[in-house]
């Protein structure tokens, strides 16, 4: 195998995803020439919660698990933020946000601990946990409501440099880099990929499999909590049911972003770009005057095509 070929295969998501996003953006500008700074800002804002949900899911999926409670955890963070920040000042709201992120880590830890202690498969535990966190979100805030100080919402909704750079994009890059880069380059990152690609081999090489799985859910919980805060910035309120959408669409972004659901293969950048693509599709459809409900059909078709293409490639490679 040639070196460039291998490089291409290894970093396929890094090369293909930005090109896809550029393609989608170019198409959007072609369809709707008035597409400007404001639209970029609403795109970045709209993609923010989805991208963070995808980040939470990515960490867990890389470790060979799957988290069906991401959306419910986001909902909990969202309603807690909207309830506690309603009459808070900006400084206070930042402190609260930090507490909520800590809470997210704790909730992820609960998921991970139950998972490791009960030895029940990830799908079942996080499915059940999704019910439970969803119930908690409803207990905290029964109806959509609450709020947060404008300065706090502005962290996601505002812009920098005279409206050129959307805050939401900066926030996403800063948050994901601040959490993921240290994890990725540490021992934890290595073991994360190791247990995702071959759990038995990792165990025999002395990796603490259970501890790594647990930590993957903790990091996922942190991302989910930030995602919930982002949801508050996007909508301005708390809504106990808004998060549920993000479990499946976050998983969709992970798949489209080139992360293998069997674990151990893929990175964080692919799903981030995929979140932008999945957010652009309904926007484009509105510009094209097509029923935006087709968005769901297209999202589904895109997922199916991406994974089928991947499957086909594997089949062809196996054939002599």
């Amino acid at each position, binding site marked *: 195998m040639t070196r460039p070929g291998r490089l291409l295969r290894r970093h396929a998501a890094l090369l293909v995803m930005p090109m896809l996003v550029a393609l989608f953006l170019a198409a959007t500008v072609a369809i709707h020439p008035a597409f400007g700074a404001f639209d970029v800002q609403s795109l970045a804002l709209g993609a923010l919660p989805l991208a963070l949900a995808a980040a939470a899911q990515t960490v867990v999926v890389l470790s060979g698990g799957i988290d069906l409670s991401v959306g419910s955890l986001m909902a909990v963070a969202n309603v807690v933020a909207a309830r506690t920040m309603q009459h808070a000042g900006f400084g206070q709201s930042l402190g609260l946000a930090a507490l909520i992120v800590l809470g997210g880590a704790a909730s992820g830890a609960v998921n991970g601990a139950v998972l490791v202690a009960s030895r029940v498969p990830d799908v079942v535990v996080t499915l059940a946990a999704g019910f439970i966190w969803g119930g908690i979100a409803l207990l905290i805030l029964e109806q959509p409501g609450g709020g947060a100080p404008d300065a706090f919402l502005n962290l996601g909704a505002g812009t920098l440099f005279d409206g050129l750079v959307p805050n939401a994009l900066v926030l996403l890059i800063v948050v994901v880099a601040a959490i993921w880069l240290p994890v990725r380059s540490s021992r934890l990152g290595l073991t994360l990929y190791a247990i995702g690609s071959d759990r038995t081999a990792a165990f025999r090489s002395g990796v603490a499999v259970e501890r790594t799985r647990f930590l993957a859910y903790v990091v996922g919980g942190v991302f989910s909590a930030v995602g919930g805060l982002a949801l508050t910035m996007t909508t301005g309120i708390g809504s106990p049911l808004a998060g549920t959408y993000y479990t499946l669409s976050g998983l969709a972004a992970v798949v489209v972003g080139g992360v293998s659901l069997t674990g151990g293969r893929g990175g964080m950048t692919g799903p981030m770009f995929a979140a932008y693509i999945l957010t652009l599709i309904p926007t484009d459809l509105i510009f094209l005057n097509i029923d935006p409900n087709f968005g769901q059909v297209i999202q589904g078709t895109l997922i199916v095509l991406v994974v089928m293409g991947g*499957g086909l490639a594997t089949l062809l490679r196996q054939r002599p």
Partner: protein
Amino acid sequence: MTLAAFLRERSLLVLALLLALLVGIITVVRPGTVTPDWIANTLLFAVPLGLMAGGETLLLLAGGIDLSVASVASGAAYLLSSNAAPLGTTLAVLLGLAAGLLVGLLNGVGVAIFRVQPLVMTLGTGLMAQGALVVYSQKIIGQEQLVPRAVATLGSGKFAGLVPYALFLWLPLALLLILGLRRSGFGRLLYAVGDNEAACRLSGVRVWRVLLAAYAACGLLAAVAGIVLVGTTNAADLSLANVYLLPAIAAAIIGGTSIFGGRGGYGGTIVGALFLTVLDSLLTLLNAPEPVKQMLYGGVILALAAAYTRLTD
């Protein structure tokens, strides 16, 4: 025989005892609730869940899963009710079933031939089906919605005022599933594929055919469930069956079917579906607020799954 071994051998019995315990709690909490009428209604409510969980059981046994069953069931129900007036009952029912079969086959092609992970494939087709349904509903806006008499009778009528007609559909299907899984070659192949796909392939099993058939059957069962459900509610809406997705998987799992494939059966799933239905009705009787209900539901699923894993490991 140790207690653990006994429980392992008779896990279905334990679940049945838990079910009896739930019914006992209901009689204590609200005396006079458990009447023949209540039993008939509980069985009736369990039918759509039991049918969808039946499809999931087939797939879990073969090492798969289907996240599109709820969209398929809602879609079949909606197609039926919006076409019953122009096409007539029989054709409308067939149309609903055909839609289910189509999505099931699509899932099967993706999983069996293109080797896509079942979770992703069915997530994608579920989104496609749900989206297509929304688009379709706006195309035919204003068209008369009609739940035919025969379907309404199936979903809510009772023979001699006591035995729900839906049972006459569920019982034969359940027998077919139980016996088919135990006695037929296809049934044994499902277990074999779920247990060790590579070994099956090496011994000459055409794995893709087994999987394709299983996914098609699951889609069809989901469509049947949607049709019974629309008979019960007497009005189709786009998210009619959505609440059933996770309970359907949960019913199979707490009924002892392993999510890793190769272990379990439909008998357990039936008890699991009844258990979840009775639990739901107990929580309603207790006036538990919706969030608490949801949390207890999740807790029970988790506890039972953990107990099973302990026993079978």
